């Protein structure tokens, strides 16, 4: 009598073999579909930016970037980021310290408030500041008295950018600090450290990669903000145009190569951001945290 166990196990192996062959096909079909989708929606746009930028040759490319209005736009973009990112950094650290290291009621409301800019259209973000500081705004008389201009000037751009990008660092740090818990900080306290010592010696080294990524991302969003800044800036060439706005102007003038040239700088920034993210993830995985 044939050994029933051997027979069935062979059949099982056969079944498994057929299954895995089918599985192999399914696998590659799925991978193919996913890659096609990503190619169409992600890779292509990225590639096209550089392709169009270099359409008229590298000299035109460099000239578009060196052009005075473009230079002014780049300068304004850098200035805006230089103000917005540090401020949002302080906010991010403060908010995540309060939220991650302490237990109190109302945390959910706080978290929702921090998430708010994500749910609000950028145009509305800009609109809010126009309503506050614009010609008919709530603070208009006060501003006129001191001859300060916020909307249609640099301060307005900075404010709108701060609003739209302040969640990024906080949202990066909060889950990170929550996952790390409070024991190390408590231990430091028991050993006699004061608040600043605890933060700089114990907490900061543990969050440094997440912090780096948060700052880089916040920076990328700050430099690339379009909708909100568009509302607030007044589009005055050479004065209140950031890089994204400059791109828009060039594009609307059908000056495509120039538009894409400036855009390519922003695309490069995006790529750097993604690379930093990859490095951060690799580093945190390696540490085994």
């Amino acid at each position, binding site marked *: 009598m044939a050994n029933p166990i051997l027979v069935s196990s062979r059949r099982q192996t056969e079944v498994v073999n057929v299954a895995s062959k089918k599985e192999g096909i399914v696998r590659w079909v799925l991978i193919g579909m996913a890659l096609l989708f990503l190619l169409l929606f*992600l890779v292509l*746009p990225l590639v096209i930016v550089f392709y169009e930028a270099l359409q008229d040759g590298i000299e035109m490319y460099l000239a578009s970037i060196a052009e005075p209005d473009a230079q002014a736009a780049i300068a304004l973009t850098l200035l805006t980021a230089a103000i917005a990112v540090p401020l949002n950094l302080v906010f991010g650290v403060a908010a995540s310290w309060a939220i991650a290291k302490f237990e109190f009621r109302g945390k959910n409301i706080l978290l929702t408030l921090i998430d708010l800019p994500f749910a609000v259209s*950028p*145009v509305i973000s800009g609109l809010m500041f126009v309503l506050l500081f614009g010609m008919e705004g709530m603070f208009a008389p006060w501003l006129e008295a001191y001859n300060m201009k916020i909307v249609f000037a640099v301060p307005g751009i900075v404010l709108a950018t701060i*609003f739209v990008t302040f969640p990024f660092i906080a949202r990066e740090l909060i889950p990170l600090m929550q996952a790390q818990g409070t024991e190390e900080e408590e231990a430091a306290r028991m050993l006699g450290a004061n608040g600043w010592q605890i933060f700089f010696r114990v907490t900061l080294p543990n969050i440094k990669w997440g912090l780096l990524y948060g700052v880089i991302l916040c920076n990328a969003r700050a430099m690339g903000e379009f909708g909100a800044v568009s509302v607030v800036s007044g589009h005055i060439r050479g004065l209140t145009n950031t890089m994204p706005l400059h791109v828009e102007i060039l594009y609307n003038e059908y000056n495509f190569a120039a538009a894409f040239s400036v855009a390519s700088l922003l695309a490069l920034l*995006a790529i750097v951001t993604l690379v930093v993210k990859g490095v951060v993830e690799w580093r945190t995985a390696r540490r085994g945290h």
Partner: protein
Amino acid sequence: MKRGWKQFSVLPGFSISLGFTLLYLSILVLLPLSAVFLKTATMGWEAFWSTITDQRVLASYRLSFGAAFAAALINVVFGLLVAWVLVRYSFPGKRVIDGLVDLPFALPTAVAGIALTAIYSENGVVGHYLQTIGVKVAFTPLGVIVALTFIGLPFVVRTVQPVLEDVDRHVEEAAASLGATRWQTFRRVILPELYPALLTGFALALARALGEYGSVVFISGNMPMYTEITPLLIMSKLEQFDYAGATALAVVMLLASFVMLLFINIIQWRTGHRRTAKGG
């Protein structure tokens, strides 16, 4: 002692950090938001109503919401696919692709806008192929959907990935040993676990797409009653100094955003609940 409201902790710095946080939020978020609602209040109900129910405006709602919904749906399907492929399979270049998923997050919307237009316009790389089969993408609602799909892409992928990574392989093996086919295992065992994440990702993508401006205005062509999204209408009204009108529309959009935020929070709260009940 603030008992009941806050738990005691030996760690210092609570008051100062919370205080600063609240200050920042009040100035930056609460104050500007209240400006919107205050301004609307001065408008008077009738004026408000007629503004937000104007034909052109209604058309923009239909487009904004419809396109956002469609884009979010596409992202659910393909986002799940991408997440699956990234978590389950290995293939050359996987790490690069995984990193690339975040591109819509990092790339400025205006850059995305002009790039997508370049691709899908009549003489664009993809656009001219589609034209031969009679499909027009740029300057049609379809273009809007394409742009919004790009914007929402990371949301579903990034919410589903961690959940998919956590799926217990042993449970799948158990199902297989009980005779389930791969598809059955997927449909009955894995997919139900993913529903909350898919729902959250959908809602996030939808919320993001509703208010999107930069990536849409280039590809849409902004034709009234046809490819005009609500944020653009707000923009136009502002350019004409019709602050009241712009604000009225903003209120409608804000209310929609708040509803979405509430919805997302409820999902997260309920799934958090369910997770603790399962002991996981």
